[in-house]
């Protein structure tokens, strides 16, 4: 399991870096798909089976296709994204954040759960979302309003005046 995690982790970080550094935006999008896939793999390693399936369905399936469609429908893709003037600053900020994060994650005593992970996770997830005693019903309902706002906003912005 540990070996699987490290392989997936290395591939996901490498593909994420490729997304940032590649000039050709189409290739960057393909690497983004790879990154999504490896994240799904990491979920599998963590025994989060439902989350892994959702990751593949939504991110690899829907969102990646949308991104690639958007790129194909936009002209001048081979020229890629213009180079930013703030490359060096962005790199410095990113590197500082990375170092800080590594220090934080390695320097903290995290709680470690000793009990075995539940499998399959689908019905515990449903319990966590909808049960009367401890369910996350409120954020679920707010998300419904959020989707309504997003749909209205998208229609109002996309259609001609």
């Amino acid at each position: 399991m540990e070996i699987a995690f490290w392989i997936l982790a290395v591939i996901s970080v490498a593909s994420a870096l490729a997304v940032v550094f590649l000039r050709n935006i189409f290739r960057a999008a393909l690497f983004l798909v790879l990154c999504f896939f490896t994240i799904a793999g990491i979920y599998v390693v963590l025994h989060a089976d439902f989350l892994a399936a959702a990751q593949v369905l939504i991110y690899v399936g829907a969102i990646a296709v949308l991104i690639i469609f958007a790129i194909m429908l936009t002209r001048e893709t081979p020229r890629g994204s213009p180079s930013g003037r703030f490359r060096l600053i962005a790199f410095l900020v990113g590197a500082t954040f990375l170092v800080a994060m590594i220090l934080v994650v390695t320097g903290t005593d995290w709680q470690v759960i000793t009990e075995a992970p539940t499998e399959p996770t689908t019905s515990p997830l449903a319990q966590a979302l909808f049960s009367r005693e401890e369910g996350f019903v409120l954020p679920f309902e707010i998300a419904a309003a959020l989707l309504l706002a997003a749909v209205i906003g998208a229609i109002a912005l996309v259609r001609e005046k």
Partner: protein
Amino acid sequence: MNVYLLSPAISLCGLAIVVILLDLFLKRKWILGAVSVAGLIVPAAFTLALWGREETSFNGMLAVDEFSLFFNLFFLVCAALVILASMDYVSKFRAFQGEYYALVLLAATGMMLMASTRELISVYVALELTGISLYALTGFLKDPKSSEASLKYLLLGAVASAVLLYGMAMVFGLSGSTHFKDIAAAIPGDVMGNPALLMGMVLLVAGFGFKIATVPFQMWVPDVYEGAPTPITAYLSVASKAAGFAVILRVFYEALGPVSLDWGMMFGVLAAITMTLGNVVAIAQTNIKRMLGYSSIAQAGYLMIGLAAVSALGRSGLVFFLIAYAFTNLGAFIAIIAISNKTNSDLISDYSGMAKRAPLLALALGLCLISLIGIPPTAGFMAKIYIFNAAVDHDLMWLVIVAVVNTAISAYYYLRVVRVMFLGAPLSEEAVPSSGALRAALSVACIGVLLLGVYPWALLKIAETAVSMFP
């Protein structure tokens, strides 16, 4: 699970849907605005009916207490004034008038929920509900400036959300819960011995800082304020900022209460940087919406003094400042909307001699600008006295000195507008007419500014009770 406790938010969301449905059938579109304003009475009535209760629902995720009920009313009043101020503006749209009002109402729903949830996931979703509605509203004009503003707001908002989620993940990883009271029980009281808590706290401050426009997430403000429809700029600068402060008060006092001295210090430093940056850059602005954008960054700095002074006085000072700032800034923006409806310009130089063309509007704008400086007899004066007092009480003399110096700097650019309006030569002789809705909204704001400046005690009492339940 008591759904009745959620009734203000549910009825407000329902009102948004009603407005959209009416938009399908109605020919006379001005009715939409009227329905939106009049319909706000329903959530307000539910809020008042709940007044005095102190309960939680949805498994402790939704809190109904004086704090959330107060902010419910606050956002409803803001939404009402913004809709009144929008009616002229929106009547120029050929389509999507219903959608405009619906999004304003949905954003208000999100803000209400931001102030009343006590659980991180709900806070985040409510924040996004507000955010998405406001991104769309910012781009509503669909001209290049408005679209650019919307895109900038969306991109930076997404970055801020990512930062916020990172911080929430840290706190969750440390405490094992997303409920505020469980987090408060689980986190250690010593930040320095726990880098993850420190990092989580810094990231939360930065993430929420986007909403209240503080350093380092203040750079979206001038462009977005300039490009957005002016009523939405007013909405952003008042309601969205207040929602950010409400959520900060709740998260930091309820969940991170054990380490309050550490984050108090952090807010103190941020306050000093933010107000200085806002005021210094505001001096050079020639566009009044950009100037008020930088001014709102500076005001966020003053407001954060209330967070830096971790005490009951600091909290109530912050809430009172929010009320005063809301009336003042809404008043200023409504006057600007009325003037730019006629002149189609936001340049300060075009306000020359406005006192002769529109004496009442110029007077109202002048009053609001004076209140933004903090000169008596206005609301801004009382608010500043109160919040500075809290800081002195908390041994933050250095912060008060920075704030007073900043106030002096700010007088320069606020008074410049007043001088241009009252002493400049008019660019034309044409009078500037304004509609009844605008005048009504402007009078409410100006009466608020004056009343709070002369007789603040009633609202001070409300501000004190609103924050009294925090430890």
